[in-house]
């Protein structure tokens, strides 16, 4: 723990982030359970650490607002279906309906399609940018504990044994865009809503645009 914090502090100090974003971190971090070793805490995601978005921010208007839509599916109610090209995540409700959320997706990277399960859930997850990302953006911290300024946002749903997750964001205006480096991101209010509906073990089906 101490070492992690030191890493976080030195990373943040190096990158010149203000004290404001640091103050809240230790408490939030110690409240979090550590992830199993198998799941890497390295994610390629947004690049505005320190920017604060409140837990309550949801998309309330327009097509990316959370809404019930017509969705024909043979999947059992509760199943999560992600259509990355559309920028939507669906929670199947049965009876021809699904609850739809607007998402942001990776520019590239996550091209894997198929079925996984939610393997773990976390509130205010920590963030460790992977080496490739640090190479491109050396100013990023090496570690950032979970909290309001963390690009991982308010909640995370871990996908199987992959490094990918469905998570929140401190950049809610990026919903509907392809800017994160591989994950599926929702506004914090929306990921919190989804988090409460989706237990560990939920089936997640991921579909991308057909390749040429």
């Amino acid at each position: 723990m101490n070492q992690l914090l030191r890493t976080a502090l030195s990373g943040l100090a190096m990158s010149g982030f203000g004290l404001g974003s640091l103050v809240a971190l230790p408490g939030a971090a110690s409240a979090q359970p550590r992830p199993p070793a198998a799941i890497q805490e390295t994610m390629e995601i947004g690049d505005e650490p320190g920017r604060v978005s409140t837990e309550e921010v949801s998309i309330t208007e327009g097509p990316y607002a959370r809404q019930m839509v017509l969705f024909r599916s043979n999947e059992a109610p509760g199943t999560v279906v992600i259509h990355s090209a559309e920028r939507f995540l669906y929670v199947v409700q049965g009876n021809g309906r699904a609850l739809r959320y607007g998402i942001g997706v990776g520019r590239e990277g996550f091209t894997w399609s198929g079925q996984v399960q939610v393997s773990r859930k976390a509130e205010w997850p920590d963030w460790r940018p992977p080496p490739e990302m640090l190479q491109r953006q050396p100013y990023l911290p090496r570690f950032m504990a979970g909290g309001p300024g963390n690009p991982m946002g308010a909640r995370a749903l871990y996908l199987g044994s992959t490094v990918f997750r469905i998570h929140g964001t401190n950049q809610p205006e990026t919903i509907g865009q392809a800017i994160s480096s591989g994950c599926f991101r929702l506004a914090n209010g929306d990921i919190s809503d989804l988090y409460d509906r989706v237990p560990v073990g939920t089936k997640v089906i991921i579909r991308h645009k057909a390749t040429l």
Partner: protein
Amino acid sequence: MTGPAISVNLNKGQADMSKTSWIRRSGLGLAALAGFILPAAAGTLDTVKQRGTLQCGVSEGVASFSEQDAQGNWRGFDVDFCRAVAAAVLGDAGKVAFTPLSASQRFDALKGGKVDLLARNSTWTLGREAELGLAFAGITYHDGQGFLAKRSLKVDTALSLDKAKICVEAGTTTQLNLADFFKANSMTYEEKVYPSAAEAFAAFESGQCDALTRDQSALHGDRLRLAKPAEAIVLPDVISKEPLGPVVRSDDFPWFTLVKWVNFALVNAEEIGVSSTNLDEALKSTKPDVRRFVGAEGGFGKALGLDADWAVRAVKAGGNYAEIYERNLGTGSKLGIPRGLNQLWSMGGVLYAPPLR
């Protein structure tokens, strides 16, 4: 099957003997023979090619389907379909002459040859085909009756509208569908009937009913016209069938086939991942379905009376189905209508185009 047997069969009352014997001599197969004798391209397609423009009948102004902007340019979902047909046939999406038609004028204008194609949010019904001599060349938009409900009701399905007050326009199939839906689901409702759609909308806005019912495409527009759109939601349920599609005359089968397959091409393009932004990449693809689509294999353009790259040109005009939908009606428009039924069959909707092969 032999050549002579076929030629005798087709010869009945149609082809003259010299033509038949020439075909026999040259030993051409069935496809060439049929193309020779039947006037495959003698109708609308030739007329359009000679004229150099496609005459497309559209609405006088239905938001997001066909409307003119301040500069007089036509825009909308139906307009983009006309442009895709023009691009496939003439190689130029701009070569369309749009004819605005009222609901009562539209079918006569088509029958009378004033337009080559009608793309005017028209519902496909038996009567319109069997009685008017017209043919719907597929479905471009699956509309249907739905409900705009007050958010304060906290319902997310029409099945939860039991005992609700429903505003509806008088004397329409909408009113009948409403009655059928509630009866079929063992629910009751309080009907609030108004002489026009505008009055029904005004009554809903002023709080005289819990929900307003009419076609979903219109409800999404109605919602945006509310003083507080956030206080109402369009429920996901679709309770009637209003399939909208392009219409042609029923006496020109080759033209009917062509228009139908432009629609199928736009849907298939989405399904195989071909869009207006990756056509160069598509042309280099080694996947058989993509190669057939771009005309590198199959020779289907010629069979339609078009160039091999007809489908590529259709997509280049305004994108594949998803691009056309999202720009005019979906995420790229103010309406933001979810794809719903108008999503691919494999992605939660009912769009199902036969394979391009």
